[in-house]
């Protein structure tokens, strides 16, 4: 039987924060630390295999803490995690309580050469790595024209299978660069699950500044295990006054991209079994912005998938208008034109967020969201999805405390009439 985290463990951070608040800790050395607590209470009803209309009241606590170590320049500590307890009828989640530490690390940055050492649970975004790691990361410039990063430790993503014995993740990126002219990086990453290779990849990335502000970006990833190219992604960014045009091309080979590790996810291993099937995407975006007030974009994407012979063309546009404060209204409209009707749909979205209105108190906001999808071929007898959301909130205590409530309504192939509610209380210490 799976071990459940105790409910007190999930709620403890929130209780500790409340105590800190009562003690007025936020008045002391405010620049040295920052703690942010987001407490979310959701409400909805679901049918389970055993019962109908089960009330689900999940209470989430997201806690983030950042602190600089007094007297040591460049040394800091960072922590972020979440916990959840279902206060409703129960039996909806596999476990009524759950909690995860997303990161918790010590970070040291030197004053020169962008030198950085990070120790603990952390996320590594570098070259071909987008990984959660329990370990160490070192990165630094090597003079004005080269840089490197290296990391190693235990992969967090693989700890669900037979624990952590035999798990390892390591890799790095070495790059050469010159001003804004180019940045050429070579990356390597290897992970093992239970002493068997889970992923071994090499990558080359290039950012090239061309004439007239034109930029080329490219990334190619080699699956070392299967000796095949997993991915090629290339794009150009062409600025023409307030407009940026971005043509791009991507291609993926199923076996090399999804990998064939026996401990991989069954769904993706099944896709990898399609061997040399290729997915190619040719597309383009056009973005226009006018001094930050108007943001508009057009996008077109042609998908060619020879693993199932399904091709599609997506085209759409989005527009947002922003005003005083955070005031913003926007809309998006697009159509996925698949070869077959079951791969085609129309997507429309409109939203607003207003925090500067004549009768709106300072710090208050009201927001709304409407998403509509129309399917060319009905899904479970329904040919559309409708989602609507309305939210409002306000701030107190010099903007340190924010209270938000929102309600959602859904009518779609999976839910006839679904109503959900959420209350969010956010507190920021040490601003």
């Amino acid at each position, binding site marked *: 039987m799976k071990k459940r985290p105790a409910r007190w463990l999930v709620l403890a951070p929130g209780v500790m924060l409340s105590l800190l608040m009562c003690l007025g800790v936020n008045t002391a050395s405010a620049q040295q630390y920052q703690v*942010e607590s987001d407490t*979310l209470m959701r409400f909805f009803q679901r049918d389970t295999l055993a019962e109908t209309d089960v009330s689900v009241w999940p209470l*989430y606590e*997201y806690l*983030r803490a950042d602190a600089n170590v007094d007297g040591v320049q460049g040394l800091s500590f960072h922590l*972020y995690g*979440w916990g959840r307890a279902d206060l409703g009828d129960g039996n909806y989640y596999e476990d009524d309580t759950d909690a995860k530490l*997303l*990161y918790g690390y010590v970070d040291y940055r030197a004053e*020169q*050469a962008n030198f950085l050492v990070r120790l603990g649970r952390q*996320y590594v*975004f570098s070259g071909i*790595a*987008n990984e*959660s790691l329990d370990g160490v990361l070192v990165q*630094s*410039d*090597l003079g*004005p024209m080269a840089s490197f990063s290296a990391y190693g430790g235990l992969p*967090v*993503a*693989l*700890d*669900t299978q037979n624990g952590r014995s035999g798990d390892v993740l390591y890799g790095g990126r070495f790059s050469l660069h010159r001003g*804004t002219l180019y940045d050429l990086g070579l990356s390597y990453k290897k992970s093992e699950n239970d002493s068997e290779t889970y992923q071994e990849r090499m990558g080359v*990335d290039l*950012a090239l*500044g061309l004439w007239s*502000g034109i930029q080329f970006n490219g990334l190619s990833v080699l699956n070392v295990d299967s000796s095949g190219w997993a991915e090629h992604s290339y794009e150009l960014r062409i600025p023409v006054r307030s407009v940026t045009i971005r043509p791009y091309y991507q291609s993926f080979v199923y076996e090399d*991209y*999804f990998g064939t590790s026996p401990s991989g*996810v069954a*769904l993706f291993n099944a*896709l990898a079994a399609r061997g040399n099937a290729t997915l190619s995407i040719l597309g383009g975006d056009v*973005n226009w*912005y006018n001094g*930050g007030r108007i943001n*508009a*974009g057009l996008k077109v994407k042609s*998908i060619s*998938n020879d693993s*199932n012979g*399904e091709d599609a063309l997506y085209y759409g546009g*989005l527009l*947002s208008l*922003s005003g005083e404060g955070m005031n913003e209204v*926007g809309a998006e409209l697009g159509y*996925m034109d698949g070869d077959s009707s079951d791969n085609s749909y129309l*997507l429309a979205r409109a939203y607003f*967020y207003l925090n500067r209105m004549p009768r709106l108190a300072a710090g208050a906001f009201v*927001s709304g*969201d409407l*998403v*509509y*999808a129309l399917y060319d071929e009905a*899904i479970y007898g329904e040919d559309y999805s409708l*989602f609507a959301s309305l939210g409002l909130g306000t701030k107190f205590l010099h903007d340190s405390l924010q209270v938000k409530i929102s309600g959602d309504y859904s009518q*779609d192939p*999976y839910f006839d009439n679904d109503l959900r509610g959420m209350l969010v209380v956010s507190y920021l210490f040490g601003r």
Partner: protein
Amino acid sequence: MSRFPLHMETMMEKKNLLLLLACMALLSLIAACAALDSGTTLPTAHPEDLGKGNPTCTQCHEARVGTMNYQRFNHTANFLATHRMEAYQNEQLCAMCHQTSFCNDCHATRVELKPSIKNQSETYRSMPHRGDYLSRHRIDGRLDPTSCFRCHGSPKSATTCVPCHG
């Protein structure tokens, strides 16, 4: 009792010693190079508070100055879908404005709430999977499963997929 003859053990010892010396030489070289002033040290935070919303870097900065290509980081209407290369090559620049927790709304090994629910009222943020994505993912997944794999590809991050897909 050793599994190898004596001359082979001696060779392996020499090889290990050479490997150790090579590693030390490489580390020394890296340390020496790292001690050089690269002239591109980034501040840990943006010098001025940018507030919320989508910043357009080139409103204040020139498109390309020194080693910085500010134009690449303009948060245009499609930036959410196109920021991967910027993050992979310049994560430290992202970190000047964004805590990792901000990135973790979408890029996390195990989160339970989809980003658009956790930040339901922040409608100005272009969150993936807004609205009824459960229905749409059948189509998007058939046409381009690589976009699913990028975030749900590991045993832990696929927890949301497994109940239906196995």
